């Protein structure tokens, strides 16, 4: 039973990583940059939900929608103000800017909400599921997380493969110049990518803090880095890769903590990443880089 319980928890934690990793991987695939401020957008989303539920007395669904809206606007603003002027600059300049943006968000949050950890409220009061005569108990947050992950995965896959904007994203990801020649507005496509990634970050913030209800300005930082690891693990730029990488990373972390060592849980996660990258530098589902002829 302990095994089953760990399995469910691992998939749930991995689902959170996967949703965050989608933001990293989409932005990387389309804008060709690593948005290290992504983890902190999660934290902002969680704080908005916290304020909505605790101070403003908003219904749970409204809290989540409000957080998604705020994060979407935040993500698009960050892109427009900080990254867009650097579109033709060297990759290193963009990377440093992204790290700077991450600190800016954390310290602004520190200024507004203070350093004391807040206890994140459970938005939906649901009973714990008990299976096998109560031997296996699953928290409702765990199931909601897994379910949300599946819904997001399906919706995003349909969006990318069926809609005009989704197809435009694939074009920009493959060849920005050729995409422009088709009449695709590359700047707008990148902006929409940030919007989607940031809206997902708000959902991830809610799911993360529902399972681990401690909220402070650095809350998004570690999950952000782990989700980035998951994206690289699965093959950065690949949407199914982010999903696979996220879930595997969650499983490795939970099982590592359960069967090997609690203290070494994070170390095991990163060790696995290093091994995978040594064997497959493009990640599990990453495409090998094609030579341009």
């Amino acid at each position, binding site marked *: 039973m302990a095994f089953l319980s760990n399995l469910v928890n691992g998939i749930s934690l991995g689902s959170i990583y996967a949703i965050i990793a989608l933001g990293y991987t989409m932005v990387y695939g389309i804008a060709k940059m690593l948005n290290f401020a992504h983890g902190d957008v999660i934290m902002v989303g969680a704080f908005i939900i916290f304020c909505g539920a605790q101070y403003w007395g908003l219904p749970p669904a409204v809290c989540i929608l409000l957080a998604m809206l705020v994060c979407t606007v935040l993500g698009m603003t960050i892109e427009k103000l900080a990254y867009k002027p650097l579109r033709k600059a060297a990759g290193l300049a963009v990377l440093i800017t992204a790290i700077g943006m991450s600190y800016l968000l954390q310290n602004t949050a520190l200024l507004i909400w203070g350093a004391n950890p807040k206890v994140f409220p459970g938005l939906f009061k649901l009973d714990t599921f008990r299976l096998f005569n109560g031997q296996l108990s699953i928290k409702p947050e765990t199931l909601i997380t897994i379910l949300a992950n599946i819904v997001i995965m399906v919706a995003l896959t349909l969006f990318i493969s069926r809609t*005009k904007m989704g*197809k*435009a994203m*694939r*074009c920009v990801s*493959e*060849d920005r*110049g*050729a*995409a*422009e*020649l*088709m*009449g*695709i*507005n*590359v700047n707008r496509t990148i902006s929409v990518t940030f919007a989607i990634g940031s809206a997902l970050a708000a959902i991830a913030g809610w799911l993360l803090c529902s399972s681990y209800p401690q909220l402070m300005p650095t809350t998004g930082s570690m999950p952000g880095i782990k989700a980035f690891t998951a994206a690289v693990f699965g093959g950065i730029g690949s949407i199914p890769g982010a999903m696979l990488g996220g879930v595997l990373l969650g499983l490795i972390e939970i099982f590592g903590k359960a069967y090997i060592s609690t203290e070494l849980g994070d170390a095991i996660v990163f060790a696995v990443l290093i091994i995978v990258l040594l064997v497959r530098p493009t990640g599990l589902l990453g495409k090998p880089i*094609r030579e*341009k002829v």
Partner: protein
Amino acid sequence: MSETGKLPLLKVNDIHVYYGAIHAIKGISLEVNEGEIVTLIGANGAGKSTTLNTIAGLLRPRQGSIAFAGMPVDGIAANKMVYKGLSLCPEGRRIFQQMTVKENLEMGAFSRPNEEIGASMERVYGFFPRLKEREKQVAGTLSGGEQQMLAMGRALMSKPTLMMLDEPSMGLAPILVEQIFDIIREMNHAGTTILLVEQNAQMALSIANRAYVMETGRITMEGDADELMHDDNVRKAYLGS
């Protein structure tokens, strides 16, 4: 002014283009009239592709002006130029390798209303029956000739009044080159004006009405394609005889 007294469809006036400090295009002027096939020939590195990319809006001229259909289009981004009826089939084809043939064609019609796509696609399949057979295939798995057909078909999907083709013969077997040039002529007969950049001067001159010869960023000769084909200097430099 063209022979009919109308304004030319495309008028490029003394443009200068730089890559950083490198002065790549040193004052080029050219005109393309409606219904023509005009070709721009010259050696590697003469600046032919740079000229097309500048007209398409991918590069900005530092000096000079470009007018399309009587309107100035300087500084208009490439993605807006498509809506004005200009399309570029770029050097190296640049098809979307991971998408299917059909998806590539759909993306070519990005600037058009959705209702038109079916009819445009039938039209493209009329020119390139091979693409219809390969409709569901991923573009990266096509042969070189098929990829060139796809690139041209994709450029045609935006229903351009002027289609610019950059080295359509590159890397193709002679028999395929002839086939591609036949289709260029057909597209022209069907009403698309063509500006063609080629290293294969012989083929280009054989289908063009007029031609410009480029050397290191400048136009050194211009005239009727037939005349240039029989010009001694052109023959020596570009036709190998």
